């Protein structure tokens, strides 16, 4: 795995991501990059489903939200360390995804996509009515929760570094899967599921596994992100809009590639930051996202990376 240049590029990029704001002590830059990193994690894991296996998961944000809830619950009620709590959340959400996946992955195409929206909305309603998780008001952290990390200021840096670590892990996971037999089977499913089955690909098992695997890192990231925010409530945790934006980022960068989703997420997040802070454009952020998606689907279905690969075929070797 480490013999090619690609994984080293990832490690170097992650180090830059982590160290530049730290050494310049630029909190503004950190917050902007943190959001970008979270989006990269979401888009890149979504890519495992959409780009590899060819299944559009519209409700992908449910993993992030559930991860956040489980983590914050463990931190507030069980006084578990946030790193342990978020890892437990990741495992738990993956297990739940495996269970859900076995059911809804029998559906195909638009029916599967609709079912994933259903899962997200159902979980949201469940949480709204679930008193141990604070119902509609959610869970708040007290400042005491940050003490094990040396206070709130320190905790913010820790969360940032850990999320950058998860971003790198997402990229390496995409890379490892794509260069494995499992990945080849998934891509075969994405191309033609019936033909893949006749060729011997265990389609049902592979689909359930990738659905579950694509839940793990977003769930851990959700735990860290909401710990950093200090609050989680159902509307923001299971926000369908973020789910859809993750799909836009994925398509923008190039679905099915490894770096594409990361590019797309970064560009989209920076664009969004610019739109939101520009006075007369701030209300048009989603309009522009929608228009962007239309343009990509129509003119560059391979996204930024697909376009680059077509223009310079040699770039495939470096930008996978």
């Amino acid at each position, binding site marked *: 795995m480490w013999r090619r240049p690609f994984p080293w590029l990832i490690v170097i990029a992650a180090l830059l991501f982590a160290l530049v704001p730290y050494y310049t002590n630029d909190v503004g830059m950190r917050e902007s990059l943190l959001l970008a990193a979270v989006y990269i994690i979401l888009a890149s894991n979504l890519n495992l489903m959409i780009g590899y296996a060819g299944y559009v998961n519209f409700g992908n944000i449910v993993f992030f939200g559930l991860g956040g809830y489980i983590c914050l619950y463990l931190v507030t009620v069980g006084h578990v360390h946030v790193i342990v709590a978020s890892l437990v959340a990741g495992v738990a959400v993956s297990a739940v995804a495996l269970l859900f996946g076995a059911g809804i992955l029998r559906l195909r195409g638009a029916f599967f996509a609709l079912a994933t929206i259903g899962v997200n909305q159902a979980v949201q309603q469940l949480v709204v009515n679930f008193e141990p998780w604070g119902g509609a008001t959610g869970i708040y952290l007290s400042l005491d929760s940050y003490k094990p990390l040396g206070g709130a200021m320190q905790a913010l840096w820790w969360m940032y570094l850990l999320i950058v670590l998860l971003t790198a892990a997402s990229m390496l996971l995409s890379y490892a899967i794509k260069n494995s037999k499992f990945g080849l089977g998934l891509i*075969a499913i994405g191309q033609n599921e*019936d033909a893949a089955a006749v060729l011997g690909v265990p389609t049902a098992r592979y689909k359930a596994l990738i659905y579950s695997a694509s839940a793990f890192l977003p769930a851990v990231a959700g735990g860290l992100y909401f710990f950093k925010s200090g609050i989680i409530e159902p509307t923001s945790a299971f926000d369908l809009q973020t789910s859809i934006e993750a799909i836009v980022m994925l398509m923008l960068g190039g679905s099915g590639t490894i770096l594409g989703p990361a590019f797309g997420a970064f560009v989209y997040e920076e664009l969004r930051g610019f739109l939101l802070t520009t006075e007369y454009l701030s209300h048009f952020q989603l309009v522009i996202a929608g228009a962007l998606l239309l343009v990509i689907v129509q003119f560059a279905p391979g996204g930024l990376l697909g376009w680059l690969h077509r223009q310079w075929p040699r770039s495939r070797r470096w930008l996978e």
Partner: protein
Amino acid sequence: MSTLLEVRGISKRFGGLQAVDRLSLTVDEGEIIGLIGPNGAGKSTVFNLINGVYPPESGRIVFAGTDITGKPPHLVARQGIARAHQIVQPLGGLTVLDNCTVGACFGREDLPLGEAREVAREMVGMIGLGDRLDLPAGSLTTAGKKRLELARALSARPRLLLLDEVLAGLNPTETEQMIDIVRKIRAGGIAILMIEHIMRAIMSLSDRIVVLNLGAKLAEGTPQQVAENPDVIAAYLGDSSLMAAAEIS
């Protein structure tokens, strides 16, 4: 020769249509069996029952001593049955080599990725697509895609190959090349069950022929016996190609 595939009384119904009706047949090791019949006789459905796309409603299918009745397609593939589809099913976005690598990875030998790629490369070469290894499968011509179906099925290193009209849509030169390839495959010890409409080809390739009509077996025997069978001639009434083929053989 010992029996490789034994199909005993399988049936399948689609709504009011009895697609396959208590059909039995056997394929011995190293044998080529032709499966012929008029359009809608249920030939492709027989393949779908054998390789697990549909479970049969009655009957048993035993392959190499293992009962595979009702097993899902991926497990049937793992047992050593590979298939080339009538309507080509390339994994269009993947390269020719990757298509065959999928076949080798998930076929009978369950190979790791690296070895699978070597087997795939070998099969692609044998089938005559060696110069198109890195092209996307979707960009091949019809004849190319037919070859790819075959190369991909062979990459699984099967013991039995189900060939569904691999000659359909090919021009005479391509047909000749494909027939040579089929002979080469049999020489390699792989048994073949083939559906074909081109009578000249099936008459010259098959050791035995099974004739289907309305889902049931109408006749079985050597190409000569089948061509002279009055029931078969009645079912094919007006099909001069069969008559002509019978005269030649």
